[in-house]
């Protein structure tokens, strides 16, 4: 469960007992893997990669393997959850915007005007 399952990378433990975090380049690699994986999910109309894990592994096998190699397990889980959270958030914002627009239309029909 290291940053790289291939474990050919440098040791993950610092000499004073700390755990070395991914540096800028490995973060960049992780983000790249994530973006590739998410675009595969988009192509296959999958939102929640945790719920539909089986489907995901069948359709985006290569991408998820690369994603899981480039990022730690905690990060993989975090990004998958974040995708769902952000989608729901955007949906909610859109819904509120539409409701607001409808309300304004309704009020305008009743003769109300914006200042």
């Amino acid at each position, binding site marked *: *469960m290291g940053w790289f399952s291939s474990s050919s990378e440098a040791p993950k433990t*610092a*000499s*004073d*007992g*700390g*755990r*070395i*975090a*991914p*540096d*800028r380049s490995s*973060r960049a690699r*992780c*983000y790249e893997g994530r973006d590739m994986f998410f675009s595969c999910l988009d192509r296959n109309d999958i939102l929640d990669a945790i719920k539909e894990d089986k489907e995901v592994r069948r359709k985006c096998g290569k991408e998820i393997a690369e994603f899981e190699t480039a*990022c*730690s*397990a*905690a*990060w993989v889980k*975090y*990004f998958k959850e974040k995708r769902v959270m952000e989608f729901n958030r955007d949906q909610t914002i859109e819904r509120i915007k539409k409701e607001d627009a409808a309300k304004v239309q309704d009020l305008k029909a009743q003769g109300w005007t914006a200042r």
Partner: protein
Amino acid sequence: MASTMRPMGRMLTRASRSALLPIEHSAPRAAQTALSSVNKTSSPFSHLRTANNGLLASHRAFSTSQLRLRAPTMGQLKSRHSTGPFSWKSALLFVLTGGGMIIYFRVEKERLERKRIAEMSKGVGKPKVGGPFTLKDLDGKEFTAEDLKGKYSFVYFGFTHCPDICPDELDKMAEIIDNVKEATKGDNVFLPVFITCDPVRDTPEVLREYLKEFHPDIIGLTGTYEAVRNVCKQYRVYFSTPRDVKPGEDYLVDHSIYFYLMDPDNDFVECIGRQDTPESATRTIMEHINDWKREGKPLRKD
């Protein structure tokens, strides 16, 4: 500026109009004064006979003694009336002073508003955000809240295994550090601090390597689990780090994602959040630093 000049112009015309009014009316009044002085000598009931005396007065007004009294006054009034009491110089002075005052009051109002915010967060007695703590810097030396005093400090809580928000925010922090440095012309009055919420994994060595990638000026602080939990509590940071972590176990830490701007008394001033750009954050910070300087309060520049 155009919008402020328009009411100014209106004010000016109104002011000059009302200033001219007494002058236009002063001529009849001078006649009245002359009249009453005459009446005083004649009878205590003279006011009952004003109609008659009016005739008398107008008649007398052409006598030599009255002319001597009135002529210089009228001459002066006439000459003043032709140019008006407002020459273009005084009008310009009026506009400039007025404009200056408006600008001054605006600036002062903004400054006092900021001061009010800063004072408000000081609360009564104990500050609401921030407080005493004892941690260790990256050389293993003790670092307490006292070490933050004398400078504006910029405190961020995070952890090195943070997936995406902390690195973004730290990149922003680096930009802010450079901006503030430039704006203060190298005065060393700004102290960026990173406090880890994950002391088990973030040892000084790990922190040093991590922060080096963002900005060399960031002071990394860590400590025991208890010490970190205490500082998070002081700064009202949500702290969810598991106490017992098995070696090799992978986990994330939930934490607040604000920068805390603290003044040289180590009192909380303002939050800088995700919505701030490096530019807007720098502006906010510089406003507070400049206010502090303007009030002549001490700053440590070592």
